[in-house]
């Protein structure tokens, strides 16, 4: 031990000290909210809580999000939406039909990995004994975490993953509030038809350019399905690899040669910028340029393309100008901004909504079963979700309401179409009940712009 080299014991001691400091920080730290339990997977007491779901007038829900890893920033954003909803519900008296039981959230970090998400789902269900799970943003993580929930017969509410495959698995315990990519594509085809009728544009042909990961590929498939069905003709389809692409000039030349009326785009940030630059350089101006959010709504895209982004349209789930259209949203956003210093966005608003939807179902489930009997209560909660009907005026998102089909998909959800106007901001142009601006069509040629 007294040799020149420190012993294993010393190293172990250092590691333990670091871990202890971290542990103490947990108890002291982070963002203080009354709803956050300070248990972590590593420091939770061995026996867990003796009573499950509800103990001392509490109802436990598990939330799985990417709180570390590449998407940690998005995860933190989603977490705020969830925290905020829980706080509101608790301050309004909790779940009334359960005797005012307070909602308690136990978080699980997926680290953005499917296998970690699955392990977290197991922990939250059997160790923390939550009544339901909410999560998990990335479609791959939602796939594995909801598979675990299905196996253990626990309701899984997914407010934020858009892969259509998730609600094609025949699961009984899976519910998704957000619209998925196929629904968005269907809506976009309707939007083009609406443009034709209203503005007499005579749009007939369309072309697609998309990045080639799961998301872009599936979006393109859905577009072809719904645009063909609506009677439009595909003249060109081009894909590229977003991670390595350095120029889209050749792709744009090929698109221009095909001369489509409509250009449909599924791009991430850098490739969206490249595309707009190449379109300008080649003076390629189809009558309508319609993107599928992602890159086109990121702040860094908006900043970098500047004026060149004007008049491009994009599908969105949320937009700042909805504040004037949805009374509840304005009020919620003001309080939210006071607390976190930022406006709600498509992600935080959807997760906020997810918790509220779960709350409405909890009110119903409490009439049928007691949270003390965990299995019975989870089943009651599942049935409550399945028969839930929430009108639009109770939501802060631009949907027609919430009602799940037999696959657990909310059929009343919808996106909105926004267009960047000459103030450099996106304005909602469709559907009409949420529109704050007239669409500027057709897309003006680049050489005729000031």
């Amino acid at each position: 031990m007294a040799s020149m080299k420190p012993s294993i014991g010393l190293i172990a001691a250092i590691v333990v000290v670091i871990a202890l400091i971290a542990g103490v920080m947990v108890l002291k730290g982070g963002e203080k909210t009354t709803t956050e339990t300070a248990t972590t997977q590593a420091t939770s007491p061995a026996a867990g809580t003796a009573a499950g779901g509800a103990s001392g007038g509490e109802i436990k829900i598990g939330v799985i999000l990417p709180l570390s890893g590449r998407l940690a920033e998005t995860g933190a954003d989603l977490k705020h939406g969830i925290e905020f909803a829980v706080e509101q519900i608790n301050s309004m008296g909790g779940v009334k039909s359960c005797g005012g039981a307070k909602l308690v959230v136990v978080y699980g970090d997926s680290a953005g990995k499917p296998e970690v998400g699955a392990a977290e789902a197991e922990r939250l269900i059997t160790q923390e004994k939550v009544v339901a799970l909410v999560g998990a943003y990335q479609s791959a993580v939602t796939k594995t975490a909801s598979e675990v929930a299905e196996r253990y017969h626990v309701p899984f509410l997914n407010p934020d993953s858009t892969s259509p495959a998730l609600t094609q698995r025949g699961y009984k315990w899976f519910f998704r509030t957000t619209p998925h990519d196929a629904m968005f594509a269907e809506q976009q085809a309707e939007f083009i038809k609406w443009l034709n009728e209203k503005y007499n544009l005579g749009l007939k042909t369309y072309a697609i350019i998309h990045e080639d990961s799961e998301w872009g590929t599936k979006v393109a498939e859905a577009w072809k399905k719904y645009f063909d069905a609506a009677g439009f003709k595909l003249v060109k389809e081009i894909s590229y690899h977003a991670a390595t692409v350095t120029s889209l000039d050749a792709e744009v030349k090929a698109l221009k040669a095909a001369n489509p009326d409509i250009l449909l785009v599924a791009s991430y940030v850098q490739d969206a910028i490249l595309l707009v630059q190449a379109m300008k350089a080649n003076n390629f101006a189809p009558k309508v340029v319609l993107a599928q959010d992602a890159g086109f709504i990121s702040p860094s895209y908006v900043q970098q393309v500047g004026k060149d982004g004007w008049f491009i349209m994009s599908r969105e789930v949320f937009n700042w100008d909805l504040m004037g259209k949805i009374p509840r949203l304005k009020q919620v956003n003001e309080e939210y901004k006071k607390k976190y210093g930022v406006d709600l966005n498509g992600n935080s608003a959807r997760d906020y909504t997810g918790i509220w939807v779960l709350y409405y179902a909890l009110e119903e489930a409490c009439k049928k079963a007691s949270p003390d009997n965990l299995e019975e209560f989870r089943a009651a909660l599942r049935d409550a979700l399945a028969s839930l009907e929430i009108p639009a005026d109770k939501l802060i998102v631009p949907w027609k309401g919430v009602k799940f089909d037999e696959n657990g998909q909310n059929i009343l959800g919808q996106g909105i179409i926004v267009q960047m106007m000459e103030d450099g901001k996106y304005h909602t142009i469709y559907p009409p009940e949420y529109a704050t601006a007239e669409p500027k069509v057709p897309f003006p040629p680049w050489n005729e712009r000031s």
Partner: protein
Amino acid sequence: MEARAVLHALRGLRGYTRSPYVWAASLLLVASPIVFMKLGLPFYANMVFLALMYGIAAMAWNLMQGYTGLFSLGHAVFFGVGAYTTMILAKYYGVTPWLGIWAAGVLAAAVGFLLGFPLFRLRSHWFTLATIAVAEIFKLLFAHWGYVGGSAGLQMPIVGPDEQLYYLQYPGPYIYVYVALLVLLVELVVLYAVVNSKIGLYLQTIREDELVAQTLGVDTFRYKMIAMVVSGFFTGLAGALYAVRFRFVDPFAVFDLITISTYIAVAGIVGGIYTFIGPLVGAFIFVPAAEYVRATIVQAFPRVFGLHVVIVGVILLVISLFVPEGVVGYLQRRAGTVRSRG
């Protein structure tokens, strides 16, 4: 000739049946899932599973690194091929994972065999860089291959209770710890025999000086190939365990440079690359430590992204400064039994 040598080396295993440490460790491992199940702590049982999965891969990786001197940072290739093989056999062809796991090993070994031809033309760090590139290429290939689900990956459908055993689908991590232990047992026996036979000696000669080994008449290409194939086989088994346990594969998870290739290498280095059992011990140190740090740090500092990675890095730095030979290597040195054959 080699098969006889391997069988002969197996006699050396008898010594281990008398070691109290071996008995204690085995008992702990076998009892752990039952204990955690009774306590209702799947998270810890999952940690044991992950440590075993990485340990199996790290021991296989070490046949190339510690014994042959081939530093690979592309073992995700074997891991991923193994995971996909088991998944595809079960999902498309209804083959039970009990067989699929071994098929995964065979296919991963075959991939190792094919990769040997181009890769063995490269020396030292060029070899390492090439292994990284190969793993990345596989990731992209699988992401664009529709048959294997492309970038969406593949998920096993949930089967009824009567097919649970056939498809190895059980709730929780507990049963999978035993499946992993079974794989580990096979690996320990085979690897022990390989490294304690003439093959092991030839491999170490190559590690010390490949040119000298060649002049002594060792067919270096052939023995490097043996190391790669055996290493690929067992890393493929680790990948198969992943697919069976999580019932989901996608190219970004199983071909990952950091969480697969690098973790495997780090587990081996922490445990000690010049020891037989070191990589397994290293996995049992590194995997829980990394998971624990992540869990606590993310809770404590939710807005400081990536802090847990820094802390794990510091811990690794401390270990590499004070025990450069790895934990097991250090313990063996202190016990005065310096042997490169554990």
